[in-house]
């Protein structure tokens, strides 16, 4: 009996080690895909719900955070490798932030494109339809328990019929099957999880990391005037090949995050440009005041970490008489941010707390809150996530409709150098984005 037991255990370990990596670019087969987009004057997040099987209907939710003037949003999903595409639309109501669902369909796993069209703008977002696969150890556990149950019945029946040898054989089967089930279950944390069906092929020996991406940032027209609308274009090129960088993956619920600010911080936009061509991201904005503006683009290439690239542009026109003041946007209802210690020191952690006054905050971009920190001279930009709402990578990102976060938002951050820093805390309340600015003076080490 010992020999088959040992053989089974060894086989289990080999089978477990055989499995491949679980996530494609950090996404499991059970995770939704999120694309924040700033399109047609709206700030939306398109959520493609996870599929448990294909072909099947595909739930897509458009979360309108800033609906602007509203309007029709057309959505289409098509497989990259050919096949049937599926389309639908939602009509976002002006002044009504919220969830707008639509059901599309999908008939195969693998690489797809999600096309979002609104107000004459079109964004094509690449993603993969994944279907989770049952891990082998789970199959072994269920099969072993089923065998144990059958053997147990056999043992009982044999005992009742006074078939001693058969009863002993079945009893042995119960023990072996139970040991196999428990062993497989206990060893499961050490088995590599299954690759979801549809995930892009990955070489086992590939090292993480890709070359740097370099931006070409352009404003159309070249120098917008105060109050005029302009198009900000970020083209990304590979630092090694010179080709367009078109391997961006979902990074905090968007392909790229763009922060645009002016010198005094009175102009602040955290937006999510649409993908107009491979490696090209664009967003329409309205200029406010004359002066120098900084652009920061944060994104992540496949199999690589996050990157931040920067650029700048100038808004023309007569110089302002006085500096502007950063202002609150959205329906803020709480207090002002509080830093602890009150006089932060460079290089030491500082906790910034904001009491929002409401206990029903929703996640935005996967977190209860975001803190964007910029040095006065624009040379540094930090992006901090709310401390209590961060979840380990293996856990699912909370849904935008879950209004479960407590009123206090807490951020911990170490300012790199002494000086003046501009900060913006952002969170979602009733689907709407609230931005609360703050200024902090950081002293050097005494």
């Amino acid at each position, binding site marked *: 009996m010992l020999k088959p037991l040992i053989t089974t255990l060894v086989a289990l370990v080999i089978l477990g080690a055989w499995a491949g990596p679980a996530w494609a670019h950090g996404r499991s087969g059970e995770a939704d895909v999120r694309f924040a987009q700033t399109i047609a004057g709206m700030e939306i997040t398109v959520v493609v719900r996870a599929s448990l099987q294909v072909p099947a209907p595909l739930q897509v939710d458009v979360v309108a955070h800033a609906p602007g003037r509203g309007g029709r949003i057309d959505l289409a999903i098509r497989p990259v490798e050919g096949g049937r595409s599926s389309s639908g639309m939602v009509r976002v109501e002006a002044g009504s932030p919220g969830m707008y669902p639509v059901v599309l369909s999908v008939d195969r796993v693998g690489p797809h494109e999600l096309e979002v069209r609104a107000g004459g703008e079109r964004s094509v977002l690449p993603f993969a339809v994944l279907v989770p696969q049952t891990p082998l150890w789970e199959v072994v556990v269920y099969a072993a328990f089923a065998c144990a149950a059958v053997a147990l019945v056999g043992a009982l029946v044999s005992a009742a019929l006074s078939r001693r040898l058969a009863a002993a054989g079945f009893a042995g089967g119960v*023990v072996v099957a139970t040991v196999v089930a*428990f062993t497989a279950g*206990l060893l499961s944390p050490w088995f590599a999880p299954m690759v979801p069906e549809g995930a892009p092929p990955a070489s086992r020996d590939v090292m993480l990391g890709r070359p740097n991406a370099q931006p070409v940032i352009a404003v159309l027209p070249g120098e917008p005037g105060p109050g005029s609308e302009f198009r900000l274009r970020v083209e990304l090129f590979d630092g090694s090949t010179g080709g367009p960088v078109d391997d961006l993956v979902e990074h905090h619920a968007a392909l790229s995050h763009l922060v645009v600010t002016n010198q005094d911080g009175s102009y602040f936009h955290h937006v999510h440009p649409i993908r107009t061509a491979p490696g090209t991201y664009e967003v329409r904005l309205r200029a406010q005041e004359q002066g120098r503006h900084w652009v920061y683009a944060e994104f992540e290439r496949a199999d690589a970490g996050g990157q931040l690239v920067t650029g700048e542009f100038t808004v023309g026109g007569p110089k302002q008489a006085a500096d502007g003041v950063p202002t609150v946007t959205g329906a803020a209802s709480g207090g002002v941010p509080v830093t602890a210690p009150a006089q932060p020191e460079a290089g030491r*952690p500082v906790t910034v707390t904001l009491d929002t006054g409401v206990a029903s905050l929703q996640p935005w971009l996967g977190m209860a809150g975001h803190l964007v920190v910029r040095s006065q001279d624009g040379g540094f930009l930090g992006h901090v996530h709310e401390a*209590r709402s961060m979840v*380990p990578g293996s856990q699912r990102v909370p849904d935008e409709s879950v209004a479960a976060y407590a009123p206090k938002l807490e951020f911990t951050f*170490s300012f790199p150098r002494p000086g003046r820093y501009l900060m913006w805390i952002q969170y979602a309340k009733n689907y709407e984005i609230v931005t609360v600015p703050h200024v902090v003076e950081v002293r050097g*080490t005494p």
Partner: protein
Amino acid sequence: MTRRIAFIALPILLLAAGIIWILRGGDGPGPMELPGRGAHFAVVVALEPSTGPLEARVEIEPAVKAEVSLFGVMPHMGHTTPEIPARDDGTGRYVARGELFTMPGAWEIHIRVQGAAGTEVIKVNTLVGT
């Protein structure tokens, strides 16, 4: 006879060990001592790395009067925890109580030591269990 007993006892013992392990919740991180060295000081941090409030004992060498504080950094998630000041607990010994880790995973403990010789932040690595 002895062989027969062994054949029966071994699987039962395996089964019992498995059940006990499950009931105990697997092997959690036990107390550990993490040494680190900077330009002016050497430190040894003794703690049980887990989420939630914990106690960390820091021993510095040379054993002098210093201002000692700790904070956690999780590089993979871009996460920093607030600084916990450590109180003096005898020559060269300091105790800090508070929350150093907010989630399981690989963390760095940054020990800030400010003494007459200078100020430095010494880094040690640890793995935090659930």
